[in-house]
């Protein structure tokens, strides 16, 4: 049994993937607390899906996929905000438009490239894809995002709980929303290698949804979310290692769902 756990650790790529899933899981679980509490799951889905055209475009043009992904995510957030800014337009449908348009653009760009196979890892994640340079990007993103969440904790909490009181105090809830969207874009971009564009949104939603069932304060929600993401992420990687047919993204998401189900079944009613 112990050998089953230790054997993959002799592979450098697996250790890198483990570090990546730990750092990315912590980042996404903490951000996810706000995503879930503010009911922003749909916009986070749009951001993660829109990474696809960014990465594919950047690969075709030959510059850093992270820059392409970040640009595409920020374009989606800005585009949805602009579409929704017209009087009578619903934000929901604006996000829906941006999500499908960006994803369609990504699919069209993929056809320009030679094969679909290169991009399967992009869509569903791949354990072997995480290189040393990717690990640095993920670590830097984790530090930046967690720092931002820490220093703006009281403002983000206030703006998420009572937007009107936040504006009365001058704590700029609109600005806080944009900061949060930018952080979600950063977090999504850093996880895309491991989990894939289609499934990254699950890393925001599932651990935090587990946390909401168990925590009584925002830091508690984050702590439970981190625990769920770490447990699910690590076991998902092992699953993907022993069953190569399961892409790492799918394995991680499936394993994250287990603690969520357990919490849903056994958490005391609050």
């Amino acid at each position, binding site marked *: 049994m112990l050998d089953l756990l230790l054997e993959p650790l002799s592979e450098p790529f697996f250790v890198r993937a483990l570090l990546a899933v730990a750092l990315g899981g912590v980042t996404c679980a903490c951000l996810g607390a706000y995503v879930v*509490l*503010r009911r922003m799951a749909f916009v986070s889905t749009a951001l993660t899906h829109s990474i696809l055209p960014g990465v594919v475009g950047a690969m075709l043009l030959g510059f850093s996929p992270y820059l392409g992904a970040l640009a595409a995510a920020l374009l989606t957030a800005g585009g949805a905000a602009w579409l929704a800014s017209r009087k009578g337009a619903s934000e929901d449908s604006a996000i829906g438009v941006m999500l499908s348009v960006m994803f369609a653009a990504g699919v069209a760009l993929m056809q320009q490239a030679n094969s679909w196979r290169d991009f399967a890892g992009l869509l569903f994640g791949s354990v072997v894809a995480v290189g040393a340079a990717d690990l640095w990007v993920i670590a830097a993103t984790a530090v930046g995002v967690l*720092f931002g969440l*820490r*220093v*703006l*904790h*009281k*403002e983000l*909490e*206030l703006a*998420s*709980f*009572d*937007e*009107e*009181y936040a*504006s*009365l*105090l*001058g*704590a*700029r809830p609109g600005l806080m929303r944009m900061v949060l969207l930018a952080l979600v874009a950063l977090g999504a971009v850093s996880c895309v290698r491991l989990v894939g564009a289609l499934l990254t949104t699950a890393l925001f939603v599932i651990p935090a949804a587990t946390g*909401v069932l168990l*925590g*009584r*304060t*925002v830091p*508690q*929600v984050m702590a439970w979310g981190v625990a769920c993401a770490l447990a699910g992420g690590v076991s998902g990687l092992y699953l993907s290692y022993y069953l190569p047919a399961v892409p790492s993204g799918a394995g991680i998401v499936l394993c994250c769902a287990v603690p969520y189900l357990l919490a849903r079944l056994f958490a005391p009613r*609050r």
Partner: protein
Amino acid sequence: MSPFWPRLGRQIGDAAFALLPTLRYARPEKNDCSGEAVVARGLAAGARVDGPAAFRAADFSIPCGCRTALIGPNGSGKSTLLRVLAGLVPPQAGEVLVAGAPPALGRSRIAYLSQRPQLTEGFPLLLRRLVQMGTYAHHGWFEECRHGEAAVDQALAQLGLTELADRPVHALSGGQLQRALIARAFVQGAEVLLLDEPYAALDAASREIIERFLFDQGHAFTVLMATHDPADLARFDRILELRGGAVLTKHACSGHDHRHA
């Protein structure tokens, strides 16, 4: 787990805060109301800036420390007037001063309690933290909540919430939540308290606690409260009535400062 890791975490967190400048949400103001707490001249406003006006050419003033009832039929603009004074809705015409300056967002001297506060449902927050949010007016960006504990304790005690301080907000009754929101406004240290029908849907016990807090303690604040209840009016020093787009004043406050009455 040894206390080392949590302590290290806290120290790193504190170091992170120390790196950042302290930025106020808005310029701090001193609470030294003298003379008029609210002055309006030719004020016109509607629920929306470009919509129809609920009232026009309203002229009135409220002295510091005066407890004023705001009455009028539904749709007469009571809520709009309060939102204008709170800085949430810009006036369409005329000028208005609250605590010596035009209403604006980020003014800690003005506290406003909406008729139906739009709180995010199911948000994980303890009652004490909700009340603490009032002290943010005296903090700034990038600052952990560090001071104002004494004021929070005092407000919790005066509104009968000490026992409930560790309850989640979404487990509170309507009356308990309303008391918590009033405690938050008090902790903010506001000079002018704008309350939009705070008794709506409250049980007698909560209502009595709030009334005692607002009227019997001689706190140093000016109250402007929208209300529909005729039984209430005897408690107030002054009554403002909104009717047909105009403001009528009854029972003018006498000249002396009611804070020391």
